[in-house]
Every structure is written in structure tokens, then in C-alpha cells.
């Protein structure tokens, strides 16, 4: 029964009238419209909703509003006063501790509660205080540094070094500029779709299959339709067609049969989320269950259950054929074939997938969407619904993490638009955390057979790979993932003969999609584990084996990539030295080990069957001398808005405060393929750079007349437009642009399109220089293994990265730390486990992403190369951050205890099992 609840929030008495089961979290967010308190999970695990109750930290989702009566409630909104920030909020900005920003308010509240009780905590006390706050972007290190800096004024954190661009005299690029979105995020004010409520908005929910494979016999929605507050119910019959970037096999809701636990079967739009959820329980689905298969190798066998219309469930086969592997193996002294297995990793972005769709009376669509690639979203919606793209507006504010998972049309988009068309209202659809794990995309699980021929001196003569890519029930980016790994797989080592066959195979499991690394982490786990295995078999030092085979600058890789710049070897040597590789290998304490792995990754690329890889930007210079950027890039936490601002500030000679990056709105932002594939700074930045040049030219032409000099002689410096050869001739940028506008009949605006210089792979051989640049990197880890429990502790971690010239060293370091920690999760914990077709760990409590307690010290080094194709010599970085992590740790474990684990994650159980086998083998041998 509803009752009045009086809450004192940030010192102000507020009354709400709610059911007693209303949580404080919902009361704050929905009744009081204070969305700084976030909602990212449904099992009380993530801590994003942390507030203070009577001065101590509490998760507001685990407190009833009625039980908070009489308590002092403090939220993130109470920490700042207007533009005046709390010291913790300032520290989070200064240290770059906020990336996507979703965890920041809760994290700051936990830290605030700690500091109130204990103003000078130790690092361990800080860790304990934020242990219950999950972060998926930062890797926690900058968060710890930020809190420590407030706790101890003397705490001087070593600032990231200024690198080559800063040394070349640049003012903004190459510097660790604080993030331009920092203030919005640390105050809880940054806009996200998950926090948005539109007038008259309905809430949509999807009923999901609880069986892995079944024919839908009937769906009875009559009870749900009658339920008060329900406005529409839809099923597969309402779907409008098939979609998919490679194979059009998805429909939104299942039409004839369900293919995995989590497949949508019906959707409801209702006045409230509670009503929508209740209505789902009134829908009756009759299934005729079918045999199912969850293992990709078994799914390829004759007679396996048929999941889609595909022979032996093979959705696609991608390959690279270069040289002659048979001949290569003949030349080898030894040929080794090893089998590796990886897992389904969940993106686990803190903000779930969410959209608000509105289908207007003139068939004009508006979609607010947490999405990395709005331009693709618009194209996908246009093609599915047969509505001209120009009539679709995709609006994307900040997004609370993406990691690749928010880059395509999903069931929520399809359903929200169909439900909106039926009801005439906007319909918000958000995945719950369970749905995130069950029914959003995952990293493809793979089985990789890697056969490598080597001479007795350790030179590779040939490599052949057979990869079985577990597609899941539908095809998202599976074929492209195979493409990417096939070509990158040939680029780390000089391999004279190379063949890759990737089979993308349907199973009755969650769908594999795009995920940071895009095929590289799987391949690299196999390749770099095998590198150490081969070195050991040959009795070689693992560094020497790699030194003998690594590609070099200027090489064209066997699979096609032109490695104009290549810091692979330098990165390896840097990481090896920093971790103390050679000494540790020789003189190690028992059960301690050290390992490393080398990898490459692309900067965007043409791995799709479309000959395009572009970014776009529009730059406007305003009459006050400020610069506005319209970019097709999305700020999902990576720091792109900051990098783009640095570039514009550099080019126009203004301060970074004078640059504003507009929120992405497909009605006004230029075409751009979006933020994925490590492309935002390099490609998005290049588009901004080019647009700046055009705008500068417009200004320079006017300035030349005014200052009586050649337009080529005009430079932009210190907010002035200056004649370079005679600096006494100068005019303020603001003055000049204002004059142009009010007294010259001109405004300053320019748009640019950057098409990446790369090419599609050859359709026959699969060989191609498919990306504009290739980054390299090495991760090195030192670990301790408990031989009795099998538990692995990562003690020290080094990442050395070649991402070309670094535009923002602090931001780059943040990307590397965050990537490495995701990589540690991938190595040690993360795996969506399927038993009898059912996913069994679908919450943060059971699907373990790293917490602050699991994070080792991470030292980051940049091996700069000046890549001629990228903005200011930069290359992509974001994905490289996690590509070599898993094999580095696997190699360290092998060094520690002498057992080789060839499947991820590297769990204590597998380690104990391997130790047991090793002991038995040794016993037999003796």
C-alpha cells in the first residue's frame, strides 16, 4: 500500500508517496529525479548507486526508501555547489579517474564516506572502501591515485611523461590534458540515455526464451494485453524483416523458433517498468523443444542439431592463403600443433544497452541510444524499416561504456520502434543486468588449432591455423572477427608460409559480437602461448625465439599488412626489462613466475565487405573565438572528446577551454563509422584536423587582406591570427571572426571527410593491407601461484605499447590500464558458463569482473613511432590494451609452476588439475 515517505536528501526534506518496496535508489532516481545515483545492476553488486546514510556508505538499491526515513541521505548532487566541486571530485578530474563516468558518482561517495571517518587512510583502506564499487573502464589505478591525493596532500603521483609531440613544441597535443568531460561526470550530471525520461514515455520489456532451442508452437498474449497499464504487446509476427551486417539472420523477436536461452519471444510496452515486467509473466508461450548444441566443434559435425539454414551450422568461412604451408612444414625441423580454447567474455559495460524509440506521425523516427556507431545505427534502422535515413534521427549523449558491444541494431531497437509505432508514444527499453549477460553480444569463444613449423634454430617456416569461432545463435560480427584475426595473425612474426581457416559456427548460446580486441585476444592467446611452448621444446629463451621471428618496420606481413612503423621488438625489450624478465627467470622464489606476450592490433580497417573506412567532422569557429566540433565520434569513456579538443586547440592556437565538442546527433553530425576499432583519435582526429585546415584557410584569406600579407603566411597562435613573417601584424581570432560575420558577410565553418588509406583483402587469398596502421605491444606479468589452492595473484604488470605518437599521455595510460585489467579478467575469471544450454552466471555476483582488489601495479610505457598515416603520427591504442594480457599471464603461470594451461580462463581448478597430472607423469617417469 502506498504511503508517504519523508526523506532528507542533502539537507532538504522531500516527501514522496510510494509503495513500501520502493528502494531508495528508485526513489532518488524516479521520484526525486536525482539521477546522479546510478543504476547498473540488479543484485546489489556494482556499487554505482552508493550514497551516504547518516555519514556511512550504503548501496541505495539495498535500502528501502521507507527505511531511510529519519536518516541524513547524501548523494553526489550534494557534494558540489554550483560549479564549486568537492576536493575528491577535483582529484578525479585531475587524475583522469573518470572515464565513461557511470561508476564515478558511487565511487566518489564511497571515498567520501571513508575520508569522513578516516581523513588519512592507507592505500589498503582505500581499496577496501571501494571494493564494492565496480569499474569497467579505468582499471582502478587512477581512482586509487585520485583518492590517495586527497587523503594525503603529500602524495605526489608521478605524472605521465610528456612524449615526443610535447617535445616538438606542440602546445596541446602530446600533453596530459585533463578530460574535458570530467566535471560533468564527477558531479553525476553527464547525460546518459539510461537516466533519461521523456514526457509520456512508456517502458518496454522483452520476454526471453528459457529454453535453448525450440519451435514456438503458440504465444498467448491476451492476459498481458488486458493488464491495466499495458498499451501494446508484440511477438515475432510483428517483426518487419531480417537484419545483420554479414548474414541477415536476426529479426529482433524470434519468428519461428528460439535458438538460445535469452532469445526474445514477445515484448510489452506499459506505463511503468513494474507493469511491463508483470505483463511478461502473463504471456504464455508453448514450445516444442528441439535438441540443442552448445559446443561449436560438435555443432559442425554431421547430424548436429540444425540451428539456422546453414550447412553443418557453418555461417561463414574466412581464410587467408599465403605462400605454401605444406612446403613450409617440409622445411621445418619440428612441427608442433596445439589446441587452445577461449571463453565467452561479457562486455559488462556499466551502463546497460538502452534506447528510447519514438515513431512520429510523419514516419519520422527519433532514437535516443547508448550506441557507439550512430551512423551505422541509422543505416541499419533505415534498411530494416524501409524508412529513408534522413527521416531517422539517432541521438547519442555520453555512453556508459561500450567496448564494442553497442555497435549494431539489437532487439531493443527493433522492439522499441515497433511498440512506439503501435502506441504513438516513445518507448524506453533497457536491458537488465541479467539480460546484459544472457542476451547482449559477447566476445566469441574460439577453439584454435595452431600448427607451426620451426627450424631447430627457432625460425618459423610455416603456420597453419584452424579456428572454430563460436558464433552463438545468430551472426553479428563473427565473419569480421575471423577476418581481422586472420590478417593480424600474420603480422607479429615473419612467417614465410601462412594459412588461416576460420569457421564461424552457430551454437545455441549467446551471440558473439564486436568486443575490444576483435579476434586478436583469442588468436594472441594461442599464438603467444605457443611461442613459449615452442621455445621450451627447443630449449630456447622465449625472448630469443621472438627476437628471431618478430616483424620489423617496413615489412609487409605475409597476410598483407604493410607495417610502415613497427615497435614490436622495442616494446618487447622495454617490457622485459621493466618487469625484470631475465633476472626473474633465473632467480625466482618458488611458485613465482614471469611471462610476456607480444601482439599487434589494427587501427580501424576494412574487414567488412564494404570498401569504406571513414570518419567525418565539422568545425565551426565562433565570433567569440571559440571552436565547436561536430564529430561522428562518441565519448564512451575513451577520452575522444578530449583528444579532439586538443587537436582543435592546437590548430587554432586557442585554449582547450575554448573548444566544445557537441553531443552526437545524426541530424547534424557528419557521416562517420563511429567509435570502435581503436579509431577515434586517429581517424576521428584526422577528420577534425582536416576540417580545421579548411576553416583556417577561410580565416586566413580574410586575415591576409586585413593584415596585408599572403594567406600562406598566416598562422594561428595564442588566440591571435598572425602574419608569420611579421608578427607585429596580428589580429585577435575572436575579433576577426566577429568582423567576418557582422561586417564581412561570412561565417567560418568547414567539414571534412577522412577516408583511411587501406584496402579490402583480396577475395581469393584473403591477403590485404586492410587497416591504415598497425599498433604493437607487449604485456609482461609476474605472478604468484598458490600450489595448494591454485589461486593466481598477479604481482606486477608492465604494458609497453607502440601506438604511434601519443596525443594525451594520461589518457593513453588510462586506456592501457583499463585494457590490462579487462585482460586480467579475461585471463583469470571471466566466462559466461553454459550448463545444459542455460547460462549460469548472469550477475556481477557470479560473473566476476576484476575489482580493485585484483589489480596489480600496472606500469605503462610508450614506444613511440611516428606513423605517417595517422593524426600527428598517432596509431590506435584502445584495443591493444588487452590483446596480449592472457598469454602473458599463462606464460607466467607456466614459469611459476611448470604447467601449461591452454584454455581460458586460467582457473585454480585447471591449475590444480594440471599440477596433479604433472606429478603423476613425473612419478611414472621416475
Amino acid at each position, binding site marked *: 500500500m502506498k504511503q508517504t515517505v519523508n526523506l532528507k536528501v542533502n539537507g532538504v526534506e522531500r516527501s514522496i508517496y510510494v509503495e513500501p518496496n520502493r528502494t531508495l535508489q528508485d526513489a532518488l532516481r524516479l521520484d526525486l529525479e536525482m539521477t546522479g545515483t546510478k543504476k547498473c545492476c540488479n543484485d546489489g553488486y556494482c556499487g554505482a548507486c552508493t550514497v551516504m546514510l547518516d555519514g556511512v556508505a*550504503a548501496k541505495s538499491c539495498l535500502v528501502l526508501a521507507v*527505511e531511510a526515513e529519519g536518516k541524513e541521505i547524501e548523494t553526489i548532487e550534494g557534494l558540489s555547489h554550483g560549479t564549486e566541486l568537492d576536493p575528491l571530485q577535483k582529484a578525479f578530474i585531475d587524475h583522469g579517474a573518470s572515464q565513461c563516468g557511470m561508476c564515478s558518482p558511487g565511487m566518489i561517495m564511497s571515498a567520501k*564516506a571513508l575520508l569522513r571517518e578516516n581523513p588519512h587512510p592507507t592505500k589498503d583502506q582505500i581499496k577496501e572502501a571501494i571494493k564494492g564499487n565496480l569499474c569497467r573502464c579505468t582499471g582502478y589505478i587512477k581512482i586509487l591515485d585520485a583518492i590517495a591525493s586527497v587523503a594525503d596532500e603529500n602524495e605526489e603521483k608521478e605524472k605521465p611523461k610528456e612524449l615526443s609531440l610535447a617535445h616538438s613544441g606542440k602546445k596541446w597535443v602530446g600533453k596530459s590534458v585533463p578530460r574535458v568531460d570530467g566535471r560533468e561526470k564527477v558531479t553525476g550530471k553527464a547525460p546518459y540515455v539510461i537516466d533519461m525520461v521523456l514526457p509520456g514515455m512508456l517502458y518496454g520489456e522483452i520476454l526471453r526464451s528459457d529454453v535453448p532451442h525450440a519451435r514456438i508452437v503458440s504465444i498467448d498474449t491476451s492476459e498481458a494485453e488486458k493488464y491495466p497499464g499495458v498499451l501494446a504487446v508484440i511477438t515475432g509476427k510483428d517483426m518487419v524483416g531480417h537484419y545483420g551486417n554479414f548474414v541477415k539472420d536476426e529479426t529482433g523477436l524470434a519468428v519461428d523458433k528460439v535458438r538460445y536461452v535469452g532469445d526474445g519471444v514477445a515484448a510489452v510496452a506499459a506505463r511503468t517498468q513494474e507493469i511491463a515486467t508483470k505483463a511478461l509473466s502473463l504471456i504464455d508461450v508453448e514450445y516444442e523443444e528441439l535438441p540443442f548444441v552448445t559446443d561449436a566443434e560438435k555443432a559442425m559435425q554431421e547430424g548436429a542439431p540444425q540451428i539456422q539454414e546453414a550447412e553443418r551450422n557453418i555461417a561463414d568461412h574466412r581464410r587467408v592463403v599465403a605462400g605454401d604451408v605444406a612446403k613450409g612444414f617440409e622445411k621445418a625441423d619440428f612441427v608442433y600443433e596445439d589446441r587452445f580454447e577461449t571463453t565467452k567474455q561479457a562486455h559488462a559495460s556499466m551502463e546497460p544497452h538502452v534506447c528510447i524509440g519514438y515513431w512520429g506521425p510523419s514516419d519520422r523516427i527519433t532514437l535516443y541510444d547508448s550506441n557507439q556507431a550512430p551512423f551505422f545505427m541509422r543505416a541499419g534502422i533505415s534498411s530494416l524499416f524501409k524508412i529513408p535515413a534522413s527521416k531517422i534521427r539517432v541521438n547519442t549523449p555520453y555512453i556508459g561504456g561500450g567496448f564494442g558491444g553497442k555497435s549494431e541494431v539489437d532487439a531493443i531497437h527493433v522492439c522499441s520502434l515497433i511498440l512506439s509505432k503501435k502506441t504513438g508514444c516513445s518507448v524506453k527499453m533497457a536491458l537488465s543486468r541479467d539480460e546484459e549477460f544472457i542476451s547482449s553480444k559477447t566476445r566469441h569463444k574460439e577453439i584454435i588449432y595452431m600448427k607451426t613449423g620451426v627450424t631447430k634454430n627457432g625460425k618459423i617456416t610455416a603456420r597453419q591455423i584452424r579456428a572454430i569461432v563460436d558464433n552463438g545463435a545468430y551472426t553479428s560480427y563473427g565473419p569480421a572477427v575471423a577476418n581481422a584475426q586472420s590478417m593480424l595473425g600474420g603480422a607479429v612474426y615473419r612467417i614465410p608460409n601462412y594459412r588461416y581457416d576460420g569457421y564461424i559456427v552457430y551454437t545455441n548460446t549467446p551471440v558473439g559480437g564486436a568486443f575490444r580486441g576483435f579476434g586478436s585476444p583469442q588468436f594472441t592467446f594461442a599464438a603467444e602461448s605457443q611461442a613459449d611452448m615452442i621455445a621450451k621444446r627447443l630449449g630456447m629463451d622465449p625472448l630469443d625465439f621472438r627476437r628471431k621471428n618478430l616483424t620489423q618496420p617496413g615489412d609487409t606481413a605475409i597476410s598483407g599488412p604493410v607495417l610502415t612503423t613497427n615497435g614490436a621488438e622495442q616494446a618487447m625489450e622495454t617490457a622485459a626489462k621493466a618487469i625484470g624478465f631475465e633476472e626473474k627467470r633465473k632467480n625466482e622464489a618458488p611458485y613465482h613466475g614471469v611471462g610476456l606476450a607480444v601482439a599487434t592490433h589494427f587501427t580501424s580497417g576494412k574487414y567488412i565487405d564494404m570498401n569504406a573506412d571513414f570518419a567525418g567532422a565539422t568545425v565551426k569557429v565562433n565570433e567569440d573565438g571559440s571552436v565547436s566540433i561536430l564529430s561522428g565520434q562518441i565519448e564512451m569513456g575513451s577520452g575522444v572528446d578530449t583528444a579532439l579538443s586538443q587537436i582543435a586547440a592546437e590548430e587554432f592556437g586557442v585554449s582547450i577551454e575554448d573548444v566544445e565538442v557537441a553531443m552526437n546527433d545524426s541530424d547534424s553530425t557528419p557521416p562517420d563509422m563511429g567509435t570502435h576499432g581503436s579509431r577515434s583519435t586517429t581517424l576521428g582526429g584526422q577528420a577534425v584536423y582536416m576540417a580545421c585546415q579548411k576553416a583556417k584557410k577561410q580565416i586566413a584569406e580574410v586575415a591576409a587582406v586585413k593584415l596585408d600579407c599572403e594567406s600562406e603566411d598566416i598562422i594561428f597562435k595564442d588566440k591571435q591570427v598572425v602574419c608569420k613573417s611579421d608578427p607585429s601584424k596580428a589580429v585577435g581570432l575572436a575579433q576577426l571572426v566577429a568582423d567576418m560575420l557582422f561586417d564581412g558577410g561570412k561565417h567560418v565553418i568547414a567539414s571534412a571527410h577522412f577516408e583511411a588509406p587501406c584496402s579490402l583483402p583480396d577475395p581469393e587469398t584473403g591477403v590485404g593491407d586492410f587497416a591504415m596502421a598497425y599498433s604493437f605491444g607487449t604485456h609482461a606479468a609476474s605472478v604468484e601461484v598458490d600450489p595448494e589452492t591454485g589461486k593466481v595473484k598477479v604481482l606486477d604488470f608492465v604494458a609497453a605499447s607502440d601506438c604511434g605518437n601519443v596525443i594525451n599521455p594520461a589518457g593513453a595510460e588510462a586506456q592501457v590500464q583499463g585494457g590490462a585489467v579487462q585482460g586480467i579478467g579475461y585471463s583469470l575469471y571471466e566466462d559466461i*558458463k553454459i550448463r545444459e544450454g542455460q547460462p*549460469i552466471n548472469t550477475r556481477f555476483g*557470479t560473473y*566476476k569482473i576484476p575489482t580493485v582488489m585484483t589489480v596489480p601495479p600496472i606500469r605503462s610505457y610508450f614506444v613511440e613511432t611516428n606513423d605517417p598515416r595517422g593524426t600527428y603520427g598517432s596509431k590506435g591504442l584502445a584495443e591493444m590494451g588487452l590483446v596480449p594480457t592472457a598469454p602473458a599471464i599463462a606464460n607466467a603461470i607456466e614459469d611459476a609452476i611448470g604447467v601449461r594451461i591452454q584454455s581460458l580462463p586460467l582457473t585454480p581448478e585447471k591449475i590444480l588439475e594440471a599440477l596433479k597430472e604433472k606429478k603423476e607423469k613425473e612419478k611414472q617417469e621416475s
Partner: protein
Amino acid sequence: MEYVRPSSIKEAIDALTEFGEGAKLIAGGQSLLAFMKQGMFEPDALVSLSGIPELKEVEIDEDGSLSIGAMVTHTEIMHHPLILEHAPLLAETAGKVASTQIRNMGTWGGNLSHGEPGADPPAALIASNATVKITGPEGTRAIPVEDFFVDYLTTDLNPGEILTHIIVPVQPENCGTAYIKHTIRDNGDLAIVGIGVRVTMDKSRTLIQDARIGINGASLTTIRAKEAEKLLNGNVWDENLLAAAGEQSADACEPLDDAEASAEYRIKMVKVLVRRALKQAIDAAVAEKAY
């Protein structure tokens, strides 16, 4: 849903009885609300214990035993001077429960009443020979903690009954304790296995007078490893004896497979960690300051 916040234990029992089967007690709410979010419980009524002052008390009873009210939070148990003095194992264990936010709100009364096998307090309480005081329509009774857990998420509480206090008797002299929590990630997780032990040594410092072993996470409920205790009691300790106690403890467990760990792994961990916990407790007992 109905919600009431009675101000005495009697009123709470009356409310529970009146609402009947669909009612649930809410203590700190940290497990209950998580379960409600997941649809595991859909109570018609909540009876809150937050308005009953006596449930928030920590006191020394007349017989010298420690009485901890059901609404005392994990954080309070970590820091309360009486607990630190009389039952430091409980303070240590409370510090290993979940996260700061959960410890600030969650209570031991609520924790025990859920009967979650991977929870931390039960093993430490079994090791401490604690009892729980239960009051209901039929009056008040006290039972040992080890008898309180009946089955997975099921306790000995009858309809209308409330766990009001945890009673920890005076701890013997010359004893040492340990709580080892094993998880795959960090101790914010539920225990895969949690071992609480108390070992009381004789004056010789080599002979085990009395050992108590509680095991979380390795059966449908927390269990007491009585056979292993028997193996230890009255014997001079050595590594082999402790290892044997580990083996014996494992025999008493019937673990489940779940997303965290296999049953087989849990058994292995009981063997290893009982041995380690015993060693840690013995080391503490024979340390100079214990005498």
C-alpha cells in the same frame, strides 16, 4: 505490499503472526532486497526490525557471555570494543564480509536467518561455540548455531519466530582462532569455502585440548566438523595430524557444483584450508601473548 516497523520484539512477533506466511522480516535488507530484486522472494508484508532498540545492543550477560543483538551490523562487530576483547574472531570475520557498503547496513541476525551456505559468520560462530536466542509466539529458546541451519537457505526458525540475539560464551584461555575465506576473486564474494576454527591448547602448548571447526560453503548449510575435532582433541599436534583433520573435515562435506567452483574443488579446499586454519589458530594460541 505492507510495511510495519514495530518498536518491540513482542510487537514484531504479533505482526509476523498476523500477516502470516507471506510476511518477511527485514533486518539490514542486504540479502533480502537482493533476493527480492531477483524475484526469489515476493513478500506481501515486511516487518522491519529497525525500530527495536534492544536488538542493536552489544552487552556482557550476567554469566559473562557476550550478547550481540540481531540488528548489530558487520561494521559494528568489526569495531565494537566488547567484541574485540571477548571474541576477536567475530570482528575478524565481520571484516571479511562483502564490501563496506554491505557491512554498514547488513546485520548478523539477518545474515544467519538467510541460511546462505557461503556466508561468513556461521563458521566463526560455530568455532566460538555460540548459540542463537530465538523468540516467538511460544516463548524464547536458545540453540547452538550449528543446529540452526537445516537446509539450503533454510533455518530452524518457525513461523512467527525471530532470531533476537547471538550469545557467545566466555572463550577459554589458551585458545587461538582463525577464519580463512577462500574465493576466486576477492573476499567481497561469497566464500567458496570459509573455515572458522578455535583451538584451545593445554599448558604444554603442544597438546590440543579442544578444537572446534566450522565450515561455510562446502555443504547445503554451514557444518561443524565434529569427527575432525575428535581426531584433534587430546593429541599433540603436528602437520600430519592437521592434514588428517583436513581430510576428515572434507568427509563431512557434501558440496554443490555451481558457477563459482565444482564440488570436487570445494572438497580439495576444505582439506587444505582446514589444515591452514588450524595451524594459524595454534600459532596464535601458543604465541606468548596468549598466555
